[in-house]
């Protein structure tokens, strides 16, 4: 009899104490990651606290869905925020600042660059769940065949270019690198020179440093070190690389999945981007996604607990071990996973380290609240110079004018 009562009591207790926390992210491969994470790591921990996590992945246009759900008041308690459009969302006031839920110490356990990326007007609005940076992938077979030494982390733009030139001239049908007219790649080189996307007043100035990187990058095809990706029928450097049309690529860890399909047997290796010969530094982007909290959430304390569980060391360890994403905690830098043999752990290690001191001048992949509009003038300039429509002077002048209009300078 007593047992029956105890069970009934326990059930009643469970039923009354259960709090539901709804979380959402985009679909694709993330569904498997979050599902697994919830089942194996997060939910067992939260069961004791009486919190039930309901996960609703969003297929289709995620930002469209999120902005509308927030406006209609139907948004979940926690959701993904991509760094690229984070500021326009944080500015809307619909996202809860997290400083009240996370102590300084807790925040310091994450990579500082990433926390900085989600800080808006002095407040932290998201806890990074994972991230990516750019790295240099190279095809060992092609370098062996051309008899050229592999690129390494001591390479500067000049020595790197020399190697590309050799590969391209030895193997007629292979480009050293295929370059794209995209700030998302070129920007890393511009950052290496010490150039900053915005000055203190929030204006963009394409200065001498920017110009130096611009001339080097756009001149690669002319100097026989690279080909324009479009001329090889590809839209990104990874496409050329996977089709063995180029010996190197400049991509993040996302290239691994692509190569698994396109060229599962390719012998490739990864190193850091080359150094600017003048500043002896590199540059890099941080692409990252956070878990953020709905400001209109009805159970914020519970949501905060879920958020902590989702970004806990155990959770990140779980994700890392499966090679699914690169974790955002500092303590994982020395994780044994990164020391495993194989091309994918190596790629992930280099990408992880790219966010820190070895990455050099690292900036998050966001441009205030301008989004893609800010990159467009620079992309147009890159394209115009690479296709020979404009000279460098003209292209940069035009880009500067367009950026001035956008940022309200002059």
């Amino acid at each position, binding site marked *: 009899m007593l047992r029956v009562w105890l069970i009934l009591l326990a059930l009643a207790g469970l039923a009354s104490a259960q709090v539901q926390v709804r979380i959402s992210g985009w679909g694709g491969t993330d*569904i498997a990651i979050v599902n697994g994470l919830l089942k194996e790591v997060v939910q067992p921990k939260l069961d004791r606290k009486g919190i039930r996590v309901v996960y609703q*992945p969003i297929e289709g246009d995620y930002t469209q869905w999120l902005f509308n759900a927030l406006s209609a008041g139907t948004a979940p308690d926690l959701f993904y925020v991509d760094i690229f459009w984070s500021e326009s969302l944080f500015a809307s006031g619909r996202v809860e600042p997290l400083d009240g839920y996370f102590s300084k110490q807790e925040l310091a356990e994450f990579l500082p660059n990433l926390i900085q990326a989600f800080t808006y007007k002095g407040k932290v609005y998201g806890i990074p769940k994972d991230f990516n940076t750019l790295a240099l992938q190279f095809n060992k077979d092609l370098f062996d065949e051309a008899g050229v030494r592999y690129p390494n982390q001591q390479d500067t733009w000049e020595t790197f270019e020399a190697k590309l030139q050799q590969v391209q001239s030895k193997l007629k049908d292979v480009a050293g690198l295929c370059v794209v007219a995209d700030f998302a790649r070129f920007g890393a080189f511009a950052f290496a020179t010490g150039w900053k996307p915005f000055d203190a007043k929030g204006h963009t100035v394409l200065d001498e440093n920017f110009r130096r990187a611009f001339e080097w990058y756009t001149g690669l095809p002319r100097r026989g070190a690279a080909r324009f990706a479009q001329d090889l029928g590809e839209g990104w450097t990874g*496409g050329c690389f996977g089709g063995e049309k180029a010996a190197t690529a400049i991509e993040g860890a996302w290239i691994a999945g692509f190569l*698994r*399909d396109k060229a*599962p047997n390719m012998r490739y290796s990864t190193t850091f981007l080359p150094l600017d010969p003048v500043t002896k530094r590199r540059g890099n982007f941080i692409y990252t996604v956070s878990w953020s909290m709905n400001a209109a959430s009805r159970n914020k304390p519970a949501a905060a607990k879920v958020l902590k569980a989702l970004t806990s060391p155990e959770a990140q360890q779980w994700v890392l071990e499966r090679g699914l994403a690169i974790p955002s905690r500092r303590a994982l830098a020395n994780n044994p996973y990164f020391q495993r043999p194989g091309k994918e752990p190596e790629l992930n290690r280099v990408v992880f380290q790219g966010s820190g001191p070895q990455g050099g001048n690292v900036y998050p992949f966001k441009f205030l609240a301008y989004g893609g509009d800010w990159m467009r003038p620079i992309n147009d300039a890159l394209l115009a110079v690479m296709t020979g429509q404009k000279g460098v002077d003209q292209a940069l002048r035009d880009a500067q004018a367009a950026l001035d209009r956008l940022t309200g300078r002059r």
Partner: protein
Amino acid sequence: MGAKEAVRRRWAALGWAYGLLLAFGVFFVAPFVMGFLASLKTDPLEWPFRLAFSQVSPKNWAAAWRLGQAGSGDPWLGGMRPGRQVALEVVYFVPRGVEPTLLAEIPRRKPGAGMGAVFETPYASDHVTLEGPIPLERRPAHQEEGEIIRYRLVLRYQGEGPFLERVPLDLEAPRGMVLVEATLDPTRFERRGRVASWDNVTPGLLGYVFHNYVRAFRETRSLETGESLFLRWTLNSFFLAFVKVVTTLVFASMAGYALARLRFPGRQALFLFMLFSMMVPGQVTFISNYLVLRDGIFGLSKLFGVETLLNTYTGLILSGLVGASAVFIMKQFFESIPREVEEAALIDGATPLQTLFRIVLPMSTPALGALAILTFQGTWNEFFWPFIVLTSPREIYTLPIGLLSFRNAYGQVGDWGLILAGGFFSMIPVLILFAVFQRYFVEGVNVGAVKE
């Protein structure tokens, strides 16, 4: 002009006419045929485009059938079961001066894009052991300096274990050594010809020829239920098209009849307004309609416990009950029927409702048939509005939206074979319908065009 010559000229003209018709026919059909052929290839973008490729060679059909049979007992879709073994032979040319070392491996391979990257399927390398390559025969080559070596590889699945959908294989040879012949042609060559790679050495006939189709079907699955999404999307499209056809036929006849036969104040104004509504593009109204559905049609849906009608079929159906053009078509048709038929019934005291459903509609089957086909085709192909309303989860997509998500999932990796296969897969149902009802399709155009 002699009679004989006139006859000759007429025959020649006929020949030219048919020649021209044939040429047009080739123009209209060729892209589909070529696209279909390409959808069978491993690389649909190969240059030059070959008409004779591995997937259409009878030698490979026979081998795929045999290997599928040996691997799992299923010659169609293949795979491998415990206790089975398959054997493969490959022939290499080894130029003089090259050491013939052939390395074979069953790779641990997993798709990198789409849902295939998500599902945990057993790895063949954990279960299947590889024996070989064993050199069977060496003989000097005829054309070039060197020798020809024939190898044999045996794959054994010993002990207990799961059913394996595919068993991949890699053969790595030093530079210069060339694969001349294989029981089954490799899926692709990698590392500049050094590695010959098979995605599946036990494909079965369908699994080999329709490789991309099988992948599209298998890898696009629902995460919750594991059922094929392609099938789900097709059923969804059918369901929505069917409902729309029914509501359109019923409500358009009702409204069309009222507009054609009954007198009521504001009839002319309503008619003109209807014409106006047909000219306004959907981009104008979708913003408000989206908001209306989001709020559950002025909160009405909350009475039924539904917060929002977005992502529901109820919302999609309610917002598309009947189109103005369908009403217009029915009105025009009813006006073409002589009044006398109905007057007798009306004199007998029948209500307009009874007249419509008992007398007029049974006479209207041609118009209803054409309207049904027209509506079906329109709904089946409709993209914009369902795309706005149905965003999540993937299980509720219609076929066109599903195709877009499919295209986005595989476009980045450039898996055009898979994308093409998805496109052709989606064409099958409507092609069957077209084959059956082709006359109505063609006639429906004329009925529909009257609307403007």
